[in-house]
């Protein structure tokens, strides 16, 4: 398989069958006041890789949940291989060969690979006993057939993310799926794992399976798909052949306007505001953090981020990035080493003290750490700084609202309603609340952890610009992101975390996906600066 958009195997499919594998027409689906799908239509031909793209909240996942029988549409109809299956159940969908690989792994961590695979269709002996031996044997056989190698007896909780995804794909194939839907499959994978996934998907397609790929990464769409359906705000806006379009065109269709794809260009490649104090910014010295099982999750890491600089940290998730950020923010105790903010030792200081010293933090999990979803936008905007909005212990509502109105307009939070619960906003707008709170105040150091995760293209562009502006204003920024191209585009220097250490640190100008990719999976080890 050579891959690439030029060799998508046009001749191999298409003309052979006129009946679409999936045809969904006029689908309506509402959740309360939110209309996830509005007359959405999708048509997928058998034997193709079909990309379903759209911003977050465009209704892609809802559409596929309807296809998989997890939800019933309010209106419209669904056909699979020419048969009307509207409103069917999960079991009927599985029986008809639909397999959905969910964005969040649908695997039971305490069970083995084989147990997860046979769950719901268990082989039995003597009527009631689970035939585990046969389950393991079947898994081994399927594993060899498909090239998705995995030992059946391993516990899911012991697997890497890439391996877990292999199990997910095996799971749907095990149930005889011929139509595979993958929801954001690459979100947590390293570049080599992504390449491996593409190989598997191409092999399945060439075998005649139909694949629907939900993604918002345009480079992936162009690389792997045959046909693209673009969704925006619950509606289908275009269906195009991949060979006849460009990433810029798709982005325009997704957002409804022109977007700059390359994460903004450097304002001044290595420029810094004149004469920062040498000890300003963020510094970590020989930092050691011990995890829950007594392992050093951060193992003797030292670095500094100067004012006017973005230090980007790349790496496969779970290599200590989360713990590093939490330790710096004061959310996790440090075993040894020092943390300095603007030259002041903050190692033993509380979150609030660090915050007052000028440390802002955009947490990786906005719903868990960043927001209180039931609170209004206005109240979320003063979380952690509420003491500045109160007088003698009583919150001054007028000032809270004034602040909210101002932040909503300067950070373009939509809908612009300060009394709406944060839960009601889209992921991108929820993230903007956090960005507004953390960056709309005086600060000198910013920890930005996965700042654009699960955020739509328009909001990504906006957040990137905020980061670059802050850098130009002389803020020291530590950026952690699973998106390699984000790290590369924004950072002055990049480091790769691998097993709690910096595997390498280099100027961003010298780094590339290929170079960093090798450090990310540990095939190449180097000395961190």
């Amino acid at each position, binding site marked *: 398989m050579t891959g690439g958009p030029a060799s998508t195997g046009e001749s191999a499919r298409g003309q052979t069958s006129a009946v679409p594998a999936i045809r969904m027409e006029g689908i309506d689906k509402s959740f309360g006041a939110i209309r996830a799908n509005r007359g959405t239509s999708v048509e997928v031909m058998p034997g193709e890789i079909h990309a379903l793209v759209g911003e977050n909240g465009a209704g892609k996942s809802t559409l596929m949940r309807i296809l998989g029988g997890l939800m019933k549409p309010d209106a419209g109809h669904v056909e699979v291989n020419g048969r009307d299956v509207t409103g069917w159940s999960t*079991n009927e969908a*599985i029986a008809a060969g639909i397999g959905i690989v*969910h964005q969040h*792994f649908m*695997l039971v*961590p305490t069970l083995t690979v084989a147990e*997860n695979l046979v769950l719901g269709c268990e082989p039995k002996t003597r009527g009631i006993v*689970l035939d585990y031996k046969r389950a393991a044997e079947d898994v081994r056989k399927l594993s060899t057939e498909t090239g998705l190698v995995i030992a059946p007896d391993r516990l899911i909780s012991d697997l890497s993310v890439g391996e877990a995804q292999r199990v997910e794909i095996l799971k749907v194939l095990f*149930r005889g799926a011929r139509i595979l839907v993958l929801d954001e499959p690459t979100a947590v994978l390293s570049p080599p794992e992504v390449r491996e996934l593409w190989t598997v998907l191409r092999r399945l397609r060439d075998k005649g399976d139909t694949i629907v790929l939900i993604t918002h990464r345009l480079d992936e769409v162009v690389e792997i798909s045959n046909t693209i359906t673009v969704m925006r705000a619950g509606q289908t806006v275009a269906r195009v052949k991949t060979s006849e379009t460009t990433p810029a065109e798709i982005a325009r269709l997704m957002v409804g306007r022109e977007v700059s794809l390359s994460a903004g260009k450097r304002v001044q490649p290595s420029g810094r505001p004149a004469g920062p104090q040498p000890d300003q910014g963020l510094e970590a010295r020989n930092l050691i953090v011990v995890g829950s099982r007594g392992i050093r999750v951060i193992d003797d890491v030292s670095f500094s981020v100067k004012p006017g600089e973005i230090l980007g940290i790349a790496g496969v998730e779970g290599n200590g990035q989360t713990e590093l950020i939490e330790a710096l923010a004061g959310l996790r105790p440090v075993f040894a080493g020092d943390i300095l903010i603007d030259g002041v030792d903050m190692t033993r200081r509380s979150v609030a003290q660090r915050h007052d010293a000028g440390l802002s933090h955009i947490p990786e999990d906005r719903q868990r750490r960043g927001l209180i979803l039931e609170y209004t936008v206005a109240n979320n905007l003063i979380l952690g700084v509420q003491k500045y909005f109160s007088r003698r212990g009583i919150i001054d509502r007028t000032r809270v609202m004034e602040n909210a109105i101002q932040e909503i307009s300067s950070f373009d939070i939509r809908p612009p309603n300060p009394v709406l619960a944060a839960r009601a906003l889209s992921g991108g707008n929820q993230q903007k609340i956090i960005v507004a709170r953390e960056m709309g105040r005086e600060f000198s150091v910013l920890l930005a952890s996965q700042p654009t995760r699960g955020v739509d293209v328009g909001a990504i562009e906006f957040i990137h610009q905020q980061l670059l502006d802050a850098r130009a204003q002389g803020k020291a920024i530590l950026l952690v992101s699973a998106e390699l191209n984000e790290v590369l585009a924004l950072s002055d220097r990049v480091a790769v975390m691998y097993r709690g250490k910096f595997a390498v640190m280099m100027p961003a100008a010298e780094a590339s996906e290929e170079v960093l990719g090798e450090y990310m999976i540990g095939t190449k080890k180097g000395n961190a600066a």
Partner: protein
Amino acid sequence: MNPISFLTQMIRIAVPYLFAASGGVVAERAGIVSLTLEGFMLSGAFAAVLGTNYSGSPWVGVLCGILGGLIFSLIHAVATIRYRADQVVVGVAINLLAIGVTRFFLKLFFASSSNSPRVAGFGGNINVAGFDNPLLWLGIIVAPVMAFVIYKTPFGLRVRAVGEHPDAAESVGVSVTRVRYVAVAISGMLAALGGVYLALDQHQFTDQMTAGRGFIAISAVIFGRWDPIRAALACLLFAAAETLQIQLQGSHAIPSQFIEMIPYALTIIALAGVVGRAVPPAALGKVED
């Protein structure tokens, strides 16, 4: 102290715990908090006495007891699964309801506020040859059977999946609702058998006769880290402590209150992670959106 009499007394004390804890394990592994065991036991005890009293046969009493536990467990299941109510709150309510309902019917059927008349039983005779109470034997094998069900059958696999990651189970067509209903119903019937044993062993029902045994059973579930065999061993340990207390009575070697504390103290120690980490099923007590 005679070791044989110690052992037989310990087993007789342990049987209600073994039934209730086995029920607790299956419900909790499916993700439903089992604070209700006490209420299930009490309702089972009363229904058994009622059935035995009117039929004269303890076997009819056993069936009635199972039915009583089943009814209460279904109330619990409907409230927590169908209506997604908080499992702890409903659990407390079920226990209070069981106390009230049994007291009410005690008055209604037996015109007493303290106890029922004497009913037939299986006879609690214990000799070297063994026990002549079939419920005793059942109580001894219930935990191994539960272990087999949970680890070796498709239903058990589903129970474990549903309690850890219900979305994953649902996505492969396993009905989380159905598995949980069945698991709670089983827990109701098993816990009720614990109550049935207790009532028939004493040949009568007395008001609030379970006296916290359901809570000791739930302690055993937690102390046993949600594993049927380990939970059963915890039951035996707690029963041994109680036996010791009874046999030491009169000697005043240790104040009995200290021995009564043992199950709860051990549970707190277990939860604090002193003896290995106690990791509950991930979806335990969670109300799904």
